[in-house]
């Protein structure tokens, strides 16, 4: 029982570290692409509360949303936001890693305006 408890503590630390590494790696790549001029918009990932109706077995109890904010300075159109979201969802490694690390919602929104899109990650895991 003590070993089980100890392993759960270790898993918690490990998961927290992996979540932080994932978000930081994404942001680092986005910054590098923006600085080099490869992309016109700076994408910034962060952890959010997520949608409670999208919960699954591995969902984090409080912060289960992976939010991508596009710093474009204008209201992005729906197809533009959809492209950003589908890029993450069509990458099987990234989408599976997100689910395993306790995320259940993918949110994409611009830095101006009220309009954003969100997806349920469980539907895009490409299992089987």
């Amino acid at each position: 029982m003590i070993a089980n408890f100890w392993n759960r503590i270790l898993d918690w630390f490990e998961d927290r570290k992996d979540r932080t590494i994932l978000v930081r790696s994404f942001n680092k790549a986005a910054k590098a692409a923006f600085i080099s001029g490869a992309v016109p918009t700076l994408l910034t990932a962060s952890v959010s509360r997520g949608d409670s109706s999208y919960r699954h077995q591995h969902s984090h109890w409080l912060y289960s949303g992976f939010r991508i904010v596009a710093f474009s300075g204008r209201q992005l159109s729906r197809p533009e936001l959809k492209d950003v979201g589908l890029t993450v969802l069509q990458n099987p490694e990234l989408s599976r890693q997100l689910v395993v690390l306790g995320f259940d919602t993918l949110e994409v929104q611009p830095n101006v305006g009220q309009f954003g899109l969100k997806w349920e990650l469980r539907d895009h895991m490409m299992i089987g």
Partner: protein
Amino acid sequence: MGTSRPYDDWLIMNESITSDSLSHVAGYPEFFNVETTLLLCAFSCLIGVLVGRKTSGLQRNSAKNLGGGQRREKQDVDYGNVIDSAFEARPFAKKLKVLCHPDRFAGNESKQKLAEALHQEVEENSHNLKELKLLELRIKTELTDP
């Protein structure tokens, strides 16, 4: 000739109050004395060291078990490709769809079938720039070359 300090009287007057309050503070929270604080610090340091050693040991073991050729780190995701794909993949996929559209090879049945398959693959990977670049190579070698 000795100089008298100006606030001596004041200090003497308040001495009893000070000592009272000090004794009150010293006896108040018995749990948070120096020994307990040191013990707590030592315990948290021990936990931190153990967790750190265990996690680094786990990582080392998992890397060892996977072996040299099959070693896959957790950072396997190509984030650069993800970011680039978000803005460049759709127009590129559109261009490739035109290049491998089956109607372009109406006279040649084998090429038409190949074009259909490639068109389908482009459709499936329309948001993955890396895959699209590989498909472009295939389209150029297999479809456009005689």
